């Protein structure tokens, strides 16, 4: 019975057999109140977590993608925060084959969604104490996510936050660190050597690498590294 209600019914006559109806609402209509009710709520959660994706794709397409995702991956967790965890992967898996070509615009939705999910994860993660740095083994703290993207989404993200108009993101190989300092989530663009260093953690910095040594104090202040 619970499975049938969760699915919104189980064929002709099921609702009438299980549920009382009246002149205002028959049994099927009463059951449909529940069946229709929860999906819009889940959709609203995804809209809230992916506002830049919604701007890029448009509201209709965004809702269609989100509805497909919810149908394919109904939530399993007590918290709605977990609902959107697989959205970017879902978009990537269902993108046309051409999306795998370098800098294909068709890859943009999935990459943007991965960036927005990273921001959500970073905003909730536990913060780490600033490292001492001298001789310490370092790690990426939970408040950092590293992404290699084929587009620069920074202007789009900023415009959506300000409620301002936006242009389509430019194609550009972009190395992004999503980090949180205090309560503020920031998108930092990294040089290749900085990205490579962070991707190589956990570990101790090469004492002979003057470039990294000069950069590390600032990186630590930006919350990019923590003690391992």
């Amino acid at each position, binding site marked *: *019975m*619970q*499975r049938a*209600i*969760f699915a919104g019914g189980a064929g002709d006559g099921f609702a009438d*057999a*299980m*549920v*009382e109806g*009246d002149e*205002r*609402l028959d*049994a099927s*209509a*009463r*059951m449909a*109140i*529940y069946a229709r*009710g*929860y999906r819009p*709520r*889940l959709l609203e959660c995804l809209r809230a977590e992916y506002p830049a994706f919604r701007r890029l794709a448009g509201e209709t397409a965004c809702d269609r993608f989100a509805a497909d995702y919810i149908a394919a991956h*109904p*939530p*399993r*967790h*007590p*918290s*709605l*925060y977990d609902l959107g965890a697989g959205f970017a992967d879902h978009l990537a898996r269902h993108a046309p084959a051409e999306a795998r070509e370098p800098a294909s615009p068709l890859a943009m939705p999935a990459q943007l969604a991965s960036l927005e999910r990273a921001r959500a994860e970073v*905003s*909730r*993660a*536990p*913060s780490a104490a600033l490292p001492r740095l001298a001789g310490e083994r370092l790690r990426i703290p939970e408040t950092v996510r590293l992404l290699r993207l084929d587009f620069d989404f920074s202007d789009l993200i900023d415009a959506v936050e300000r409620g301002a108009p936006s242009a389509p993101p430019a194609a550009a190989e972009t190395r992004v660190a999503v980090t*949180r300092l205090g*309560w503020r989530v920031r998108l930092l663009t990294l040089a290749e050597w900085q990205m490579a260093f962070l991707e190589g953690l956990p570990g101790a910095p090469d004492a002979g690498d003057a470039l990294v040594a000069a950069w590390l104090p600032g990186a630590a202040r930006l919350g990019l590294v923590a003690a391992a």
Partner: protein
Amino acid sequence: MAAARLGLPHLGDGVGLRDPHFAHLMRTSPDDWGVDWFEIVSENFLGHHGYASTVLERVAAHRPVVMHGVSLSIGSAEALDEGYLDAIAALAERVRPAWISDHLCWTGIGGHNSHDLLPMPLTETTLAHVVGRIRRVQDRLGRPLIVENPSSYLRFRSDQMPEWEYLSRMAEAADCGLLLDVNNVWVSAMNHGFDPEAYIEAIPAERVVQVHLAGPTDCGTHYMDTHDKPVRDEVWPLYALAQQRTGGVSTLLEWDADIPPWEGMLAELAKATAARAAPAEPVPVCG
């Protein structure tokens, strides 16, 4: 007979802790908040170590907090989610809530969570099932569970008793508390054609620990419990009746969408004070 409010405190008048009010609560002195306590949706804070967690810590340092869950699924045919109970227990260690509550409902099946409060057949079998599960939850959490009456949009042909009888027997058998949502009583009364006063009169007053107030949506053929509007005029006499019968319990104003600014919340909450002071008026019976 149980002690009034199961011996739990009367916290006064409170509101839900919601995002739109975080900045106000962080920048304003607690002396100026204007509310006595806060209720959190437990799931919103599970595993959360960011800004919302910091706000909760500040609020909990200055006011009592109650944890109100939506995913316990006490009426489900599936096993209790032990991982979820562990997470709730861990959050309670941090927050030290005055009590923990959830709803008489089930939320999903097959490992899926609808994040909605789905209806229970009110039968002897489900009553025994729910009582057993409440006892296990109370044993796990080390405290009474406070169970809320949900809003209802359908009734099962298999129902063997009205909801107020079900809740009353459940509370006595499980030795748990009740969160009496008077808006849900009114919504269900409108949707099914029963007397909302009779419902409130039938509930064991000493087991009511808290009252919820909220505003529903008129959908034409039925009312929906949407928590996005002021409390309806028809609900205030029910609230006054509940407070009169119980001798006074904690009041919580729920508002979860189209949330007004802080001052708007306080203005709505002030109506509760007025309702308690006003003489009781008969509530029109629907149908």
